[in-house]
């Protein structure tokens, strides 16, 4: 049986029919073709699918699509505004915070949540905040620098 859902994604109201068992990440990728949100595991461990659900960083593989009915979702595709990169996107480029790019959307979404709640995090706080996101390329060294870079540029203004 299919369920009709309506989700505000990146400022746009999106309708769809999903199975009860379908995950939000599947709705984003398969129904909405928002493939910037990635699937890196099947145990909600890697964080590659992290999005913002009603403003909070959430692993979109831990949420059923029907649970997102009526919700507001932001994905990596919605982070830049009017062609202007989000300071975190700019920070990742500036500080070489990505290599293969697969974990990057999830990292940026997690980091945006961190900076919203803690605009000037210490290195230790950044590393703790990234605990739910795995990167296999960078050794996290430059991801930390990227987030510090963004925090500095955002100058304490929340994400």
């Amino acid at each position: 049986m299919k369920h009709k859902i309506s989700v505000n994604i990146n400022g746009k109201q999106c309708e769809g029919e999903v199975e009860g068992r379908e995950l939000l990440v599947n709705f984003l990728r398969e129904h909405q073709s928002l493939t910037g949100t990635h699937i890196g595991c099947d145990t909600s461990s890697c964080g590659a699918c992290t999005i913002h659900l009603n403003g909070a960083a959430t692993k979109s593989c831990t949420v059923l699509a029907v649970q997102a009915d009526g919700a507001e979702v932001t994905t990596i595709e919605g982070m830049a505004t009017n062609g202007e990169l989000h300071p975190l996107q700019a920070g990742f480029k500036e500080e070489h915070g990505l290599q293969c790019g697969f974990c990057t959307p999830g990292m940026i979404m997690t980091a945006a949540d961190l900076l919203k709640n803690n605009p000037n995090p210490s290195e230790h706080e950044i590393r703790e905040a990234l605990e739910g996101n795995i990167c296999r390329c960078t050794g996290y060294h430059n991801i930390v620098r990227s987030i510090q870079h963004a925090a500095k540029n955002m100058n304490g203004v929340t994400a």
Partner: protein
Amino acid sequence: MTNYIGKSVKRVEDKRFITGQGKYTDDIKIPGMVHAYILRSPYAHAHVKSIDTAEASKVPGVISIITGADIPEAIAGVPCGWQVDFKNGDTMKEPPHPLLVRKTVRHVGDGVVLVVAESKAIAKDAADMIDVDYDVLDAVADPKAAAQSGAPLVHPDAPGNLCFDWELGNPKEEVAAALAGAHHVTELDFVNQRVIPNAMETRGVVAQYDTAYDKYTIYTSTQNPHLIRLLMCAFVLGIPEHKVRVVGPDVGGGFGSKIFHYTEEALLVWASKHLNLPIKWSSDRSEAFLTDAHGRDHASNAKMGFDKDGNIVALQATTYANLGAYLSTFAPAVPTYLHGTLMQGLYTTPKVNVDVKGVFTHTNAVDAYRGAGRPEATYLLERLLDLGALEMDMDPTELRRKNFIPAFDGVEQEGYQTQVALQYDSGNYEPVLDRALEMVGYENFRKEQAAAASSNKILGIGFSTYIEACGIAPSAVVGALGARAGLFESAQVRVQPTGKVSVYTGSHSHGQGHETTFAQIVADRMGIPLDDVEIIHGDSDSVAFGMGTYGSRSLAVGGSAIVKSIDKVLEKGAKVAAHLLESSVDDLDYADGKWTVKGTDKSVSFGDVSLTAYVPHNYPEGLEPGLDFSSFYDPANFTYPFGAHVAIVEIDKETGAVKLKRFIAVDDVGNVINPMIVDGQIHGGLAQGIGQAMYEGALFDDTGQLINGSYMDYCMPRADALPSFEIDRTVTPCPHNPLGVKGAGEAGCIGSTPAVVNAVVDALWKAGYKVKDVPMPMTPERVWTAMQG
């Protein structure tokens, strides 16, 4: 003049990744595409008695259910790309690796049934309803156990589960005699445990057959599109190579695990024509744990002999290397020619013998993983050196200095001929150690360590001075060593009529930043803006040929091929310029994107020459139009990066918990094109090498089940598990390639692992625990147990 080379140019490729526009295999959709799921064996060793698909085929949305019996007999399976022989000259045992098993499953995850359906969910539902009746047999997962008599056989025609029994170096008797006469022999049994590469993007394949053109297109998450095409067409499916397009789109990391030609690629291609439908398969993570080729998995004994002054007199290394159930593409080369050949290290050891048995087990394949054989060799050597220093009460850095090969540049001084086949290109080993010690503050550290020795938090320092062989590889050399392919690289530099440049490289990029680094080389050498250059890779229909990306070869081999093509473009361009300037080629200088008549201000720009080459109205007689050159570069030798890595750890004596306090790495990768990218490669390698030392390791039970096959169970370093790294470089250019580069992709992973273990052993030893080894990964429980004696 250099505008780009040597500068940390920000990456061209980043924009699509930071905005969510990367296109990985699972992001690809083709109209009418259907989905595949592979039902896999839950047993490590069993006979398949029957397969009942009746109920599954009734599931709405199921399109086809295919078993091994449905695949034509002529399709025997995927091949191995490297042949290693027995000591007596016999050819290695090379059992077939079928696309789906027909009778016997040989590891958990062996493919049994392909289910094709309208969605992946439906295919999985149907697979759940398939009833496979197995006759379960005994299994063996450990390489040493598998080589014992009476062990369950993986393949009936490989007695003793031996694939090969190989040795390299000086005669064993000579090494034994030198060890017998040594003042001191350090001996250790090692396990270099199996680790799982875990690229964050799992593997995936989309295959399509086009009846109109009788042509296949396959998107696959690979480091190696052309080699996949060659192997699949010529050795698996027998389909014409020119009728197959293989694309490696954006690939989410590889670390070796995506070099190889996997069964799923050939299976999907075959099924796409069989069903006349585009099909996608994307691996689940738990499936990736069971089917991606793993790394390492050596059980070794090694002996290093020293004279009374600490000079190394001999090394004997004996290894059982786990190959898994089937031979993956490069598997036999990894524990032999990429491992045994590195046993000279940075040292003048006069007698070296390496003995390796390649062993089949009921586990999935083991093949190249970041470093591939070189980390295992480095681990063995560097552990023996630090342990030898502890046993002889010498300083580990002084012991190394005594034994370092003296500096040689490969130009004025010849390359260094090792006892194990290779000739090093250039090296200068003391400065990397000097710099690392300076960064550590070595004297101070030893004082701090002594002060902490009686406290609850003890300190240790561990060293690793490594060498590796990169820039893989001179074709004739590797051919003599058993490679079944050449290991050159190709590049095409196509100048467009407007002077913009498209570069087609056979080196695939999946995180290494080729689109930036290669463009820096082209822009600099041609004197044009970086924005005027585009690097194209990963598509067999646009790139002439490629041997792929692995073995830190892209820049040294692929970059050198690009340089060759640039030279040809500029050589022809000079002829056009000379004509336009009514001068001779010899009278022209080329700089900053223009040819100038020496001693005058008469010049013509690269753009004007390009246009003239394509609009040849006023053109040199006899010269072909166009400005477009291809080159193939076959390296003269491997390249030999080296470095010094230092780990500083703190151990909680009450719990055995190890904290990595600092990690210092000084690497020499030859000339550097983009320091930011090289630093990033080092960081990532360090994380994986440290991961092996402290966190990672595949665990199999007695029945061959992988018991930590998910991210809930397999521990990889996360951000809070690592320190910021302290890194620096020295530069010893490679003398035999035009860029002077050596390769940086694997260095971090090769050098770091033994440094961390050495630091733990040092901490324990200096605090009074005479512990020679702590097995990796060094969990608190293992460290604590070691401390209890």
